[in-house]
């Protein structure tokens, strides 16, 4: 599937490295972009492309926390739990979000909309507490603002409260 759909892109990735195996991370990124998570079939396919065994791909994919190994919801809510955000109250916020969504960290709501993750520093320490939903940053959070964000996301799939986008290249459209 990947090989057929992104033939040129994969060829381009492979051409960038002297050793085939080096293209593993870009290909895993591609797989995650495609399905939202790194599926087993994708890992097997990547193994075949790169002349590796599936366990070797699995090894790399599980090492990096930003690869999702399970299907995620439409919105991947990643709240910062590091020191700076913690000082301005991320802990109670996380508790509140857990209650609001009814799921714990790493879990997805039953309507497959929100997946909650608690992550380390996202580099926006001046404006904490903050979170990242898919590719967008939401800063200076309060319970009220998070509630609004969730409602807007649920209704329109977008929220006016986001700051950014800061990421290059363009965010995922799904």
């Amino acid at each position, binding site marked *: 599937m990947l090989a057929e759909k992104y033939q040129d892109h994969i060829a381009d990735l492979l051409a960038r490295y002297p050793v085939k195996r080096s293209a593993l991370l870009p290909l895993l990124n591609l797989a995650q972009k495609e399905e939202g998570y790194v599926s*087993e079939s994708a*890992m097997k396919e990547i193994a075949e492309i790169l*002349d590796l065994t599936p*366990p*070797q791909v*699995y*090894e790399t994919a599980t*090492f990096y926390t930003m690869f999702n190994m399970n299907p995620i919801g439409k919105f991947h809510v990643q709240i910062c739990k590091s020191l700076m955000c913690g000082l301005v109250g991320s802990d109670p916020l996380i508790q509140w979000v857990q209650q609001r969504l009814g799921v714990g960290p790493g879990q997805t709501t039953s309507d497959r909309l929100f997946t909650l993750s608690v992550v380390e520093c996202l580099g926006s320490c001046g404006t904490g507490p903050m979170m990242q939903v898919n590719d967008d940053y939401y800063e200076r959070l309060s319970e009220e603002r998070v509630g609004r964000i969730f409602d807007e996301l649920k209704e329109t799939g977008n929220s006016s409260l986001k700051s950014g986008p800061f990421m290059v290249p363009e965010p995922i459209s799904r």
Partner: protein
Amino acid sequence: MAESNNQDLVTLTVDGMTTSVPQGTLVIEAARQVGVMIPHFCYHPKLTPDANCRMCLVEIEKLPRLQTSCSTKVAEGMVVKSNVPHVDEARKSVLEFILANHPLDCPVCDQGGRCDLQDFSHQYTPTTSRFTELKRVFPKEYFSPLIETQMNRCVQCMRCVRYCDQVMDVKALAPSGRGTLTEIKHFSAHELDCEFCGGCVQICPVGAITSRLSMYDFRPWMLKRTDTICTYCGDGCHITIQKKQDELIEVNSTQGVGRNNGDLCARGFFGYHASVHPDRIMHPLIKQQDGRFAQATWEEALELVAEKFQGIKTAFGGNAFGGLVTSRCTNEELYLFQKFMRGVLGSNRVDSSARFGHVNGTLPLLSVQGTHRWTATFEDIVDADALLLIGTNITETNPITGLKVKQAVKQGHAILVTMESLLPARGTISNITLLATHHLPVRPDHYHIAIVGLIKSVLDNGLVDPGLETRAPEFFRAIKAAIDSTSWAHIEEVSGVSREVFSQSAHAFSSSTRGMIIVGQGVLRSPRGAEMVTNLLDFLILTGRHGQPGCGLCPLAEENNDQGAIEMGATAEFLPGPIAIGHHDTRQALSKLWEVDLPQEPASSLMEMFRDAQAGQVKAMYIVGENPVESLPQTGKIKEALESLEFLVCQELFLTETAQLADVVLPACSYVEKDGTFTNTEGMVQPVRQAIDPIGESRPDWEIFSALSVVMDQPMEYGEARDIFKEIRSVIPGYGLVGPVATRPTPKVDVVQQYLQEGFAHGLATRYVCTQDQPASDTPFLLASTQSLFHSGKFSTRSKGLLQIQSSGAIMLNPSDAKKLGIASGDSVCVSNAHGAVTTIARVLNRIPPDVACFPEHFDQDIRCLFELHIDKESHVPYSKLTWVRLERVEKGDV
């Protein structure tokens, strides 16, 4: 290793002791040499240093911090201290970290009692821990039938992962996750699917990876060990059988010992239960009038056999006897069997299972270079510059020789040329063609023409040894003329390999100084096997590699003692030595030693015996451990031949199809119950030792021959197997000098000279002629009976461990063929040709070439009927490994 020589020695001091070691040695190894044991988990001499366990920290003067001795190389004047307080302190801390998560379940752990972590804990740690946190617990996804992982015990040294990658080249294990939550896994939650070599079980320093076959059956201190030799292939691996009372518990092998250096394959590691299978024959059996077997005593059985044998001998003479022995017997037994046949019964009709293929390797070697053994050893494979593998899926047939090839390629950077039907596709077991510099994908029936192509490119590209033309002009001209009769177009069309690939391979091989050819079952057990081996020897001579140090042609033995069977004279054309059967002086010497006259009749080999049995010339047969009814196709009419005999004696472990036809069945011992020697494929004679008492009333084969000869009044009496070995030594001077390395014979100059002058002409008219077997349009698939990594002959199909990995045969197909036929893995497939039709299960595998189907020979009871039997005119080898079939998908309802 070759690179270390005496000039670059480095002197260093370890704990006050000064020693000199070669440059590049690791500090931990240097310390071991002066008797300082530095504790370690992740270091292993076979693997590259990883330095992840931090246990081997030592103080090295002038270096700022403590250094890991497993990754630091020695330097001149280095002063290493391993017994100073702060080094102890560091080790204590490392152990405290490891024990923060290691469960204290030593009482129920199979490693408890021989665990590195346990030992070091006793040595270094306080009995308490400062960690109060909960220990990590990994959820369990499946329970493996063979290799059980208990990851809570893992110390994350990555030895298993590195072994699987660097030594076995399987890459089935990988660490998943990170930090303390790193878990050694196969792929996600899938069950481990790999070569099952057991290397991870052996190399794990703790009890994280253990064998389920012996799980909880023992504690290490209860085990009694017996060092012996594995019986499952010609590699002759050293194995240590561990038993508790008389129960086989486990098999392992020690690093640094034997030809295998501690590495094993699935057959060696998990296959040991075959010997204690409940179906073993416990008592002698005599067939009654009604065709059923009745239990008898040894006296009754031996007396009956002796009486019948005497009767037939008086009535029809010695030539009415035929004898067949399996190459799984020890050298002593093979020797005694042929002595019994030739000396006591007076028959020259003796053969062994070396006839099924190994003679195809030995006969050309004898006629071209005068040796019956390899002119190289496993060490030469490791040191080789270029290796040419022909017709051998070496990983599956001879796994440990395969490891030597892998080592040569991965560590020695040797050039590897494979001529093999397998495609270079990655699978759950390693594929040697993936390591090849040049791979020539050749269909199993096209090896002959591909070898011709290789020789042609040597001649066409001017790669011929410059001195050869003047040294042996006739040889050169004759070979050139014979080769020139085949055109490149024909070779390219038939073999499917382009001229460029042939010449690249020929260039690669000729550019090396240490080039070896390894020939496998694909050549030895397929039609024209002996001719192909002779042609390959011509190739060696032409490239000038013949007779050079570290060069040679190495035919791989399939059974553990194929080589020994030939050397002990248990084949039709040889007396012990092997000396040609007509050799006058040897006959005289043997007559004198055995105190009998040797039979004068011409020798007859396996297939001739069955032919004569059907014709009524052979009246009685003595079959030891062989099962020709099952191993040869029905078209050979073996069963009919055996039924027409007056008297058939079988000496067996199990009541096989052949044994069921016998009049008397004598229970024999398997390799774990007897003493003796095996000769491995490279010609090394190694001792086999008794591990457990004989099962039931079974007796070692040599004892039975001896007892029978006594009852027949021509006693061959020996106290123990070693007495027979002494006699063999008196027959073959210098035989079996048991040492750490195989003796390396060199080609005999006079024989080679003779071959170059006139010997080459023998068979030259035919051996370069390329014939082509066209598939009929209705049977487009070439069905090959292949060997599986997980079995050896039919013997291993009695082993419960190996049956867990592979319990039945499946027809293996290429994905493109499967797609064409609409077949998926697990579908029922009808395989048919003019001889019949068989329904079996399909398995789609990337490595199978198009238009070829493979079926494991170990489960061929049903599919055997499709094969035909061809007999080699020259070497009398029966070929039955290839046939043409058609495949059709069968709906589930139709079955």
